[in-house]
């Protein structure tokens, strides 16, 4: 990495030095052209630089894709995430294709048609056929993308109640997350900030019998291959519940309940053995060893992705995806809301 940086800096310095030397050169000649309007020589040089810039741009893109792809997120760990990744791949290929073609044309034309004395430009004001072609091609392509995107969107956002998803409340406050499982009845008890008192930090309505079997926890456990429906609630400002590995995100809005559902498909254990993650964790641990930090083991996480105050950067919760048996065992250990209230 550092060598690349050094190369950039040197290249930039070289360009700068070369240009400065040009200024001196120009200022020395007694009959120098001082009009400050580009002359033949400028057109020649700058036109070539345009081509050079195109080369730089392609190398930069190539370098970024080559070296940085390994920092990007691994394959999705949720059911809809596969569709998400597909759509992303198609869109990416499409825009990279357009990018490569248009940037090449732009910079090549800038080089090829660089000005020269006596050159005549072509008076070419319009061509309806061309205009039509490059209107209709984006129309068709975008229509395809829109339709594909909208089907996926509807699919992701509509919660299928028949599948009987596990209902979990995610409760956001500056600067932490809390989860409330709906318990055996799979129905959350009513809650409002006006009920917050003592141990009852989520403001759950103690009169509501649905609340009794709710379980309030600080770590999120999810059974693999079971649909989950998150109900999101905030007690103070806007937050956003972002699960990057599950391709899931929804804002948490004080005064209303928002929701997002997905089905995790890869357990934490399996993800730790995913090739990309193994690589990534190895790299991370190399860096951490150098800095003298503890070694790191992969875990899913939930983070806050809407600016929410000074410790916004550290508002996170660990997420564990495990087999249904492990999940049930873990859940059974957690105290119900009724139990924790009676301890008080």
């Amino acid at each position: 990495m550092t060598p690349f940086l050094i190369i950039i800096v040197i290249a930039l310095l070289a360009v700068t030095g070369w240009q400065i030397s040009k200024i001196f050169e120009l200022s020395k000649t007694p009959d120098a052209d001082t009009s400050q309007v580009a002359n033949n020589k400028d057109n020649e040089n700058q036109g070539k630089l345009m081509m050079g810039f195109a080369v730089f741009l392609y190398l930069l893109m190539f370098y970024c894709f080559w070296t940085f792809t390994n920092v990007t997120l691994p394959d999705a760990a949720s059911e809809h995430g596969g569709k998400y990744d597909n759509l992303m791949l198609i869109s990416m290929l499409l825009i990279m294709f357009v990018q490569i073609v248009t940037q090449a044309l732009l910079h090549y034309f800038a080089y090829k048609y660089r000005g020269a004395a006596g050159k005549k430009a072509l008076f070419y004001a319009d061509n309806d056929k061309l205009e039509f072609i490059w209107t209709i091609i984006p129309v068709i392509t975008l229509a395809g993308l829109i339709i594909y995107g909208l089907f996926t969107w509807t699919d992701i956002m509509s919660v299928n109640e028949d599948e009987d998803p596990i209902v979990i409340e995610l409760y956001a406050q500056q600067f932490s997350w809390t989860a409330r499982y709906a318990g055996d009845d799979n129905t959350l008890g009513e809650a409002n900030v006006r009920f917050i008192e003592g141990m009852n930090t989520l403001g759950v309505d103690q009169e509501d019998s649905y609340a009794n079997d709710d379980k309030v926890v600080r770590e999120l456990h999810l059974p693999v291959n079971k649909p989950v429906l998150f109900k999101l609630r905030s007690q103070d400002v806007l937050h956003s519940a972002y699960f990057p590995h599950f391709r899931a995100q929804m804002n948490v809005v004080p005064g209303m309940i928002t929701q997002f559902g997905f089905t995790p498909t890869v357990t934490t254990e399996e993800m730790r053995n995913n090739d990309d993650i193994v690589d990534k964790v190895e790299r991370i641990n190399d860096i951490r060893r150098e800095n003298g930090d503890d070694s790191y083991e992969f875990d899913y996480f939930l983070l806050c992705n809407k600016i929410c105050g000074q410790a916004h950067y550290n508002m996170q919760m660990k997420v564990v995806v495990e087999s249904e048996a492990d999940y049930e065992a873990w859940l059974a250990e957690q105290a119900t809301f009724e139990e924790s209230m009676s301890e008080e």
Partner: protein
Amino acid sequence: MSAVVNAPAHDHHEDHGHHHKQTFISKYIFSFDHKMVAKQFLITGLLMGIVGIGMSILFRIQLAWPEQSFAIFEALLGKWAPEGVMTPNIYLALVTIHGTIMVFFVLTAGLSGTFSNLLIPLQIGARDMASGFMNMLSYWLFFLACVIMLCSLFVEAGPASSGWTIYPPLSALPQAIGGSGMGMTLWLVSMALFIASQLLGGINYIVTVINLRTKGMSMTRLPLTIWAFFVTAILGLVSFPVLLSAALLLIMDRSFGTSFFLSDIFLDGEVLSHHGGSPVLFEHLFWFLGHPEVYIVILPALGITSEVVATNSRKPIFGYRAMIASILAIGFLSTIVWGHHMFVSGMNPFLGSVFTFTTLLIAIPSAVKAFNYITTLWKGNLQMNPGMLFSIGLVSTFITGGLTGIILGDSTLDINVHDTYFVVAHFHLVMGISALYGLFAGVYHWFPKMFGRMMNKNLGYIHFWVTAVGAYGVFFPMHFLGMAGLPRRYYTNTAFPYFDDLADINVIVTVCAIITALVQLVFIYNFFSSMFYGKKATMNPWKSNTLEWTTPVEHIHGNWPGELPVVYRWAYDYSKTNSDGEYVITGQDYVPQNIPMQENEEDLHH
């Protein structure tokens, strides 16, 4: 009709030389003259730009080398950087004010304020704006807004720090973040004045374009710059009042206990009395301005590019009418796409579908514009002046940044890149860098018109090439941070070991940002030294067709010494030839708009 309207202005000019002498104050400070107002906007905008870009360098240093001590932090941030380590609060404040200054003060006022004022009267053949007084007022309200915004940096609890989008409740409650106290109040006051300034300016631009065009200057003969400024002004007039209403309601919530945006809030151990409001309402109101705003920023830049590219290619802009149609289409669509900022805000997913549809539609006119620029270069005789380089650079960054918009505008794909660095990379390329390039192209191109002198071209070349390399170096790698799932507005990423391997990319980005920012000093030096010591400009240094180059180099009140010019043709008769292959005017590859049709010349209905 325009002749009638212009008659009094004309008389006024004739009087002017004999009667009142302009004092320093009426000439340089409270000037009614559009050319002076334009210069005032430009210089104020540039100074604000230095502040805005400087802030970005500070927080980029923090992101590359988190929580390390730097003397520069201690020197500039004082109590906000104890022992030279930046605090999270000031980090958020810097991010917020950087966004506000760059979007509103530099790219809205500095870009469209400058060039609308300078070019509208000059290019349509008018003596001045419809109302010189309102024009002056527009600048001074802007100036006041700048002063208040800068003052807010020095208040006890810090400046506004809830992001430039100031979403409540964070921006409404000082208990939630220090900057939402006095700092936020000043932010809102400053923005209210700014909006008033924009509205006064906008009405003026619209009226001037509609009423004060000189004889022969039909709407379809207007240079594309004017079309862009015209549509921009309409967009501003439609959307800025909505931001003002959002700001007013927010002021009510903050100071008078109303509950437009607040509901069910528990902070600092107590329940607030607010009930029934919705932050989502604020998001709608904010983005109803916020999205047209990005087109308010980019359209003038595209207009400037059209003009500069055509002039320097010595070719007509390709597809003039398609370009106008694109500007109109972008203008219209931009008012109905705001919801793509809110796909995951909790609004109804069906609305998300609608906004995906309208958003992806806007890619069509944008694509048409990009293709037309490329075709304009084709078979041209490209004069590589610094303005031209920046225009080509603009097309390049506009494409790169615009393409990622296809990903973000798709509600499905937005789910996982929303509010990550992918978004930051996207909008900086497509509206930040592109609009700045438009601003630079405009400054290099019209500097001779503004100051009667030429800017140094070699310094211009250095400025362009280092900026072009640096800007891509900053923003291309940044996409990968976003695709790694890294959220924006994080003070440091060290709280997540998972992001540790992104540290290298952050260093690259910061180093490029510092280099790019430093090379802007070359521009600043070139700008100010050329103002005084630059080579004296000729009347039409770029051999351009538009009317502003028919005015004398020395500025006079009323622009043209004698009669107003009459227009006989469109602005793009570059390299037009007769049927025998000779230029229409022998030995000259351009035909200015005020030259009547020549014998043997083919009328192409432009």
